[in-house]
């Protein structure tokens, strides 16, 4: 019973939403289902928050690895949340929450992402070797795409943007299309297995 009821719910819901996608007459019930999903998604955020706080509170209590950073995380979690709840959202960027977002959170995250430029350049020097024919082709393609995407490329040779566009529109798009279709077929196949109860890993328990 513990397994059959979830399987039955999954089967009925799955079949219903597949039919509802093609049947406008079922849109009212489908809308209700979507409202339900949005509520579940909101609760999923809550679960994520509780999980985050439990993991880091436990780390502080045990004085585990980098527990000081966990203290910082918990402090700023509550600090940002309280500031956000107290302030009404605005379009002028004058609230305290806008200040926290624009001058603390924003530069910190942008900095983290910007560091990639340094790692990529260092890795490209040490690891990008033309050891095989495929690696050589990839390096040539990368060379044309990198130069074709920036103004200095067209200043060096005015056909760099054309070659870049050709590579992106034919080779890259063709490969990506194959990957996307493959993933989609895999997702459909997995969905069918879940709807018909052939794939039960999501229920837990290991069988």
């Amino acid at each position, binding site marked *: 019973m513990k397994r059959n009821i979830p399987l039955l719910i999954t089967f009925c819901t799955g079949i219903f939403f597949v039919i509802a*996608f093609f049947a406008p007459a079922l*849109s009212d019930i*489908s*809308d209700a289902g*979507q*409202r339900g*999903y*949005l509520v579940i*998604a*909101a609760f*999923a*955020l809550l679960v994520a928050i509780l999980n985050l706080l439990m993991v880091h509170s436990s780390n502080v209590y045990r004085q585990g690895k980098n527990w000081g950073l966990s203290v910082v995380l918990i402090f700023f979690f509550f600090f940002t949340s309280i500031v956000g709840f107290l302030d*009404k*959202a605005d*379009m*002028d*960027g004058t609230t305290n929450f*806008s200040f926290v*977002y624009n001058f603390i*959170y*924003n*530069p910190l*995250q*942008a900095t*983290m*992402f*910007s560091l990639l*430029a*340094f790692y*990529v*350049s*260092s890795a*490209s*020097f*040490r690891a*990008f*070797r*033309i*050891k095989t024919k495929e690696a050589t082709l990839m*390096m040539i393609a*990368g*060379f044309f795409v*990198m*130069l074709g*995407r*920036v*103004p*200095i*490329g*067209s*200043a060096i040779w005015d056909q760099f*943007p054309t070659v870049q*566009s050709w590579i*992106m*529109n034919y080779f*890259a*798009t063709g*490969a*990506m299309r194959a990957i*996307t279709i493959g993933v989609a077929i895999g997702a459909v196949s997995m969905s069918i297995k879940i709807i018909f109860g052939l794939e039960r890993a999501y229920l837990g328990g290991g069988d």
Partner: protein
Amino acid sequence: MWEKIKNLDKRIIYLCVALSVIIPMLNPIGLPIVITEETRRAFQAVDNLPPGSRVLFSADYDPGSEAELFPMNIAILRHCFQKKLRVVMTGLWPQGPAEMNKAFGEIKKDYPTLTYGTDYVNVGYKAGGLVVVNSIGSDFTIAFPKDQAGTDIRELPILQDVKNYSSFGLVISLSAGSSGGVVWVAYGGTKYHVDVITGCTAVSATEFYPYYSSGQFKGLINGLAGAAEYEKMVGAPGKGIRGMDAQSMSHLVIIGFIILGNVIYLTEKYGKK
């Protein structure tokens, strides 16, 4: 000598990259920007809308992708207001609506007559990704009953008669990953037949090209270069155009390091034979 270069201190590489970005920022070279077809089509999708049309503008990114997507956010927003379009702002990422507020803050002084709730609105973030996009197709109020400040959207003139995608002339998504442009085009575009354009980070552009070449995206703004092109077409040079000189130089530096690394590799390989 090769051994020394091979074991080059990575701090020297970091310094070269930093200088390749900083020097052009301080002393712009002013290299000409070439407009690509993808960006031109995105621009035309906005430009062809009649004044008063409603556009749904979704910032599906966070500050990590701001360097590339924020300049195009500003340029597109500016274009919308130049064309007297009514902009409904949202985001499938939690930070998206704040990015929209920030972009609007950058240009609001140029459009002092715009009124919140009449000319533009920010309906905030809603968790759910593709279900949010899909539910707008049935009824906009399912996903967004209130704006970001908690005001009932029926009290706002811009959204009083909003129904679903038929109420919007265009959907614009600035996308740094999932959920983003692909979700908007798969559900909003393909199922509900609304026109969709997207702007994306250069590293994720490959994911978007299949949808652009099939005509599902009406335009594609690719990375900082795309942002610079859009700024040029709008006639308002900003961070995109300023950043292109730095990006040109940093690409040259990285290509230089790749070539140098391979020269060392090939010298060692054939030198041993």
